[in-house]
């Protein structure tokens, strides 16, 4: 009896070990159980970790995966979906443990660190091996001459304008330069009733406000925060000018209150609820705004530039990028999935669902022609230059955060613009030195 009991305990212990062991098992596994036919044993299951599925209409991504599986017998795709932040943590931890998913959704801001970590496969080599036509790609994120990420869908960040509020404030036209913007923001704020001209999210837990809402003013006037790929903040007149411009708006009370801990979602809420006249935001939020406030009349426009600027206007963008794990045992199959998603028609379908601009240069999603706001945005996109200087930089999010800290101090009047730039430069230099 006791022997049986002991045996039972041993089995339990073994099962516990096996369970915990399974948690860090390999990323790919045959789809069929041991002992099945040899053909089935050759099946490959690719794990695809991304944050896209929750942001797309139900079954949009799964439907494409089903199509891929149908076109590629023997390859199955398991979607590992989660929010943006947890996908990043998962990729970092997975890369360290050698359990990274075969195909991963990437943000350009992560690429440099993951390449340094050695967790991404060289896509240039995979493209060559698969004889993939690179000319169809709108962009590639490269480091040291090799491609590590391909942008699948691009979300540009134009300026959103509340037409009704602008009209009420007596602003005849959408501002195109900083002087007009300052005047419009002041007029909107004068409306009272807690309405503000502009909204600026600077929360340090997600400091992408620095990229989208601060540096966008630099890029829209042809400026840059880099020189020869290195940080260029101290003595940078373009960045200083943008900072002083924002500080002017801040001191005039034209920016919605709560900036220092405001998140992107709060920004969208403020605009959607008609409490803010203008914001710089992703086109991905157009449908959300429409759903939440059907009566809101708004349009999109290019981000205003410095007065008298006539060059191409940079417009921030964020991408749903894709890469292949260096630890994947099925890199060729993984790249098949990448090339499937980058195909002209599939890419158009995906971008249509996401309301994003395509990563395939030849794709034209339907919404670009059928929806006036997106049509307008597409024209701005084509007339300007999609710019995101944080893409491919080391510890990009930390660069935004360190700039954010200094910028907040500057806005709060605790230091000058020059001191803020010098402190941020020091932090950025240290980050680049690694």
């Amino acid at each position, binding site marked *: 009896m006791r022997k049986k009991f002991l045996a039972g305990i041993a089995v339990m212990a073994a099962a516990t070990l096996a369970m915990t062991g399974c948690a860090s098992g390999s990323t790919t596994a045959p789809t069929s159980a041991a002992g099945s036919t040899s053909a089935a044993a050759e099946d490959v299951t690719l794990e695809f970790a991304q944050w896209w599925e929750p942001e797309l209409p139900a079954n949009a991504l799964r439907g494409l995966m089903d199509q891929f599986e149908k076109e590629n017998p023997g390859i199955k795709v398991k979607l590992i979906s989660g929010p943006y932040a947890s996908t990043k943590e998962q990729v970092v931890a997975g890369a360290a443990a050698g359990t990274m998913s075969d195909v991963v959704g990437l943000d350009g801001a992560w690429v440099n660190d993951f390449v340094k970590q050695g967790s991404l496969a060289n896509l240039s080599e995979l493209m060559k091996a698969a004889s993939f036509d690179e000319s169809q790609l709108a962009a590639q994120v490269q480091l040291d001459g090799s491609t590590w990420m391909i942008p699948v869908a691009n979300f540009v960040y134009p300026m959103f304008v509340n037409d009704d509020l602008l009209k009420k404030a007596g602003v005849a036209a959408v501002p195109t330069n900083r002087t007009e913007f300052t005047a419009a923001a002041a007029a909107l704020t004068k409306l009272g009733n807690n309405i503000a001209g502009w909204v600026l999210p600077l929360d340090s*837990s997600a400091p992408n406000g620095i990229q989208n809402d601060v540096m966008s003013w630099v890029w829209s006037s042809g400026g840059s925060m880099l020189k020869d790929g290195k940080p260029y903040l101290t003595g940078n007149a373009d960045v200083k000018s943008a900072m002083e411009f924002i500080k002017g708006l801040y001191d005039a009370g034209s920016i919605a209150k709560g900036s220092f801990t405001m998140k992107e979602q709060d920004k969208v809420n403020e605009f959607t609820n008609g409490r803010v006249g203008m914001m710089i935001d992703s086109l991905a939020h157009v449908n959300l705004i429409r759903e939440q406030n059907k009566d809101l009349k708004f349009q999109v426009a290019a981000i205003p530039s410095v007065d008298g600027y006539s060059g191409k206007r940079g417009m921030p963008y964020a991408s749903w990028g894709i890469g292949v794990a260096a630890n994947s045992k099925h890199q060729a199959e993984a790249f098949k999935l990448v090339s499937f998603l980058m195909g002209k028609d599939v890419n158009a379908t995906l971008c249509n669902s996401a309301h994003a601009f395509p990563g395939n240069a030849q794709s034209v999603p339907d919404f670009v022609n059928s929806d006036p706001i997106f049509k307008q945005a597409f024209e701005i996109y084509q007339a300007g230059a999609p710019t995101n200087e944080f893409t491919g930089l080391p510890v990009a999010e930390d660069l935004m955060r360190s700039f954010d800290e200094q910028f907040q101090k500057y806005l709060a009047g605790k230091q000058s613009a020059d001191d803020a730039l010098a402190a941020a430069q020091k932090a950025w230099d240290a*980050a680049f030195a690694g």
Partner: protein
Amino acid sequence: MSTTTLPARAKRTGPGGRRVQATGGKKGLVKALVPFGYLSPTVVLLTVLMVIPIVMVIGYSLMDNVIMKKNPQFVGFKHYSDILASDSFWTAVTNTLFFTGVSVVAHLVLGLAFAMMLNTELLGHRVKAIFRTIYVLPWLFTVAIIAVLWRLLLEPNGVINYLLTASHLAGSQIEWLGSPDTALLAVTFINIWSGYPFYMTSLLAGLQGIPADYYEAAQVDGASAWQRFTRITLPQLKPIIISMALLDFIWTTQQFALIWMTTGGGPLGTTEMLSTFTYKLAFTKYQFGTASAAAVIVLVISMVLAFFYVRAQKARD
């Protein structure tokens, strides 16, 4: 206080016991291993889920470029000295101490006050049941819900500001979470709100366990309400209070989600805690060695507090 007498059979068959020695052989060994068999699932789980990760983190804290590079370098206690020399770390320590200290004291005071209100004989059972439900509500929400709820309430256009301006208690919108002057107080308040029901329910159980005879005897002796509170209620609740305060101290020093979702450690670092400081080191700077060192420092602080907790528990037993 109480003693347990083991059955004679168990005494004889325990590991290393006389009977085992007397019997010897394979059968005796099997019997000696039985207790370890019982323990094995727990031991395995503790080893896999606690011992190994802790040892790994301690190991990481002594290495440079760990996780991010395949061949990390051993750097000894460099990360510890870097952290201890960092102003940001000491800001985080100061904020954590304020946040934790004020939270624990307020949790205790509020929890005790509400528990005593719910224990009073002046109110009927139905009224007490209603209030018990209302008071315990904050405890039922997850941290994410609490963070979103209070962000909405405290935002410049939120309900709190509306009430304050409408009642002329404030001249303009107050940036509760966005201003360096009020952010730490605001997150501490949110934490107090979300945590007092834990004290309340535990202290209420403690209050209900105090024999009524004590109060009756004190009343006969002419003790005032305050004297009854300080001489009977508090001494009787002391073991519970000490245990809960220590547990609360440990939990609150590790509070991450609430801070991250409300202020992210800002504005201007005024709500930066040890937890957010460590997280940023790991997941935005990718300095896993330094982050591990910070985590080990938090672990040591928690272990000191846990030591006092265990000692309080032993004294109580």
